[in-house]
């Protein structure tokens, strides 16, 4: 098994790739993809710290919180993509920077 830092650096890189996608893309689906990548990085961190705990089996909180996070991420994706479809139906666009009706 490699050291803890190996996994932590991978998960940090994954998080920053997701952050970059969320901040730089204009298409709503790309922003959702970025959010998914960030959530996957956070889940990977939970599992890594659970695995390197001295007594991982006594109370596998890392496993359980990852399962809950995956369920919540799935709900978030479903609502997000439904929003994308609803917005597309109204405005015929999925570019988030052209949704500026509320701008003063």
């Amino acid at each position, binding site marked *: 098994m490699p050291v803890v830092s190996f996994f932590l650096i991978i998960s940090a890189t*994954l998080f920053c*790739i997701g952050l970059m996608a969320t901040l*730089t*893309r204009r298409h709503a689906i790309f922003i959702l993809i970025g959010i*998914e990548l960030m959530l996957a990085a956070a889940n990977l961190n939970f599992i890594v710290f659970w695995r390197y705990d001295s007594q991982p089996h006594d109370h596998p909180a890392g*496993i*359980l919180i990852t399962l809950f996070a995956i369920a919540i991420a799935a709900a978030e994706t479903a609502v997000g993509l*439904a929003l994308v479809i609803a917005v597309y139906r109204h405005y015929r666009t999925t570019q988030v920077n052209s949704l500026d009706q509320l701008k003063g």
Partner: protein
Amino acid sequence: MTLLVIIAIVTLASALAAATLGNLMHAALNLVLSFLGVAAFYFFLDAEFVGLVQVLIYVGAVAVLIVFTILLTRRDEEKKNGLPWGGVLVAFVVFGGLIWAIVKTPINSIPTPHLATLPVHRIGQILMTDYVWPLQAVGVLLTAALVGALILVMEEKP
């Protein structure tokens, strides 16, 4: 170890492709590959059940949802109007900060505990005893989210 490095490279490269490719469908398929890589990491870290859940939910359900949404909104491709360098800069600053924190923290002396596989029935027992209220809350949340998603995409009466 070599295998882990290969999986890491595949995961990060496909994540980068998903974040930067212009074609939405290619980006979605790269995202699936990236999720598979993360699931492989779960298997390596002895969290087999979470790895399987990851494959089922992300590679199965979420990928299908994203692909269907892409197909339903197809005609609207992203306009190229220059890379917003502010976002890239923020991502790199956060990356630098995280790497600095990881390298500076003395955690590598932690030994890897020897681990027998965590049986799935143990996870089920814990979910049904200590974590029963969070489990119920997630159930309510999923129901509410799915009903909400259905209401959002429902055809409006003219």
